[in-house]
């Protein structure tokens, strides 16, 4: 029991510094949700059901742009697909767990929790309770996110526009990419994605610019991985 508790608290401690930018993120989401005319329960519900900042913001953006359900779902699916990667990476450490554990851990898994738990798992493979780290990290993220969303819903229009908190959202995603800035292939993929998205924002109908940009970028990524193989 002692080891479980220790691992759990380590998870909470490790993820806490990363929660700082999550708070304004959640608040912004709550504010934008209300501004768009969603009801408070609906806005909060999105945070509970989807529990993924990027996906929720994208959904809101597309909603307000008038995208169809198909585009919205596909775009959110595209944004969420990075969780497939997280699941694949973690299956090495967690595939032995019972289904209920997997469901709970999958639900609370988001980028920040993945980042810290991945580091922990790599260094602590022998710990049979290492999944408690993810539990601690994930639930911390969850609680912080829900509270921030509620704050955003309540504060609503009180926050001044000039603070540019929506820029903070862009920064958060930018920050999650910093490790990839060092790899040339990733930078190429990023540029393709960004440029296609920016041009496509106005030119591509049905607000599909995210999907198109992501697919184009992934296509380039696949090509880049193939080039490597041929050279060898």
């Amino acid at each position, binding site marked *: 029991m002692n080891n479980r508790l220790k691992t759990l608290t380590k998870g909470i401690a490790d993820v806490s*510094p*990363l929660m*700082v*930018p999550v708070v304004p993120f959640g608040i912004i989401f709550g504010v934008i949700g209300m501004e768009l005319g969603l009801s408070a329960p609906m806005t909060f519900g999105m945070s509970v059901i989807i*529990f993924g900042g*990027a996906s929720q913001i994208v959904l809101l953006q597309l909603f307000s742009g008038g995208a169809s359900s198909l585009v919205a779902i596909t775009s959110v699916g595209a*944004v*969420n697909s*990075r969780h*497939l*990667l997280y*699941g*694949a990476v*973690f*299956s*090495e450490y*967690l*595939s032995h767990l019972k289904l209920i554990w*997997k469901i709970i*851990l*999958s*639900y609370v*898994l988001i980028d920040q929790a993945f980042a810290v738990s991945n580091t922990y798992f790599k260094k602590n493979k022998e710990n049979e309770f290492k999944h408690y780290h993810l539990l601690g990290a994930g639930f911390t993220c969850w609680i912080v996110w829900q509270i921030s969303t509620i704050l955003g819903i309540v504060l609503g229009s009180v926050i001044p526009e000039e603070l*540019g908190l929506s*820029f*903070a*959202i*862009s*920064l958060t*995603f*930018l*920050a*999650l*990419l*910093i490790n*990839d*800035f*060092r790899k040339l292939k*990733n*930078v190429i*993929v*990023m*540029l*393709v*994605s*960004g*440029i*296609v*998205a*920016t041009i496509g*924002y*106005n030119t591509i109908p049905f607000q599909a*610019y*995210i999907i198109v*940009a*992501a697919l184009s*970028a*992934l296509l380039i*990524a696949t090509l880049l*991985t193939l080039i490597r193989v041929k050279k060898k």
Partner: protein
Amino acid sequence: MIFLLKEDILNDKTKKVLSYVPSAIFPAIIFPPIFLDNTGSIDFENNPKILAAIFAIIVGYMSRSILSTIFAGLISYWFLIFVYY
């Protein structure tokens, strides 16, 4: 929401491509709000966000720290608004 897959259901090649997913997705969400102004046209001159973002990238590259990147970007953004304003 994700599902933890059975081990090895994704082979190495797929995992490699999947590793590019964040690089492929996030810029699509990041670039438009930074480069496009309220009317949707590209805006280079009157745009503190681009400079702030570049500064944040440099800090991120050197520090490898998520928090530093975000704070660097925010502080430079606020500073630039103050100056431009």
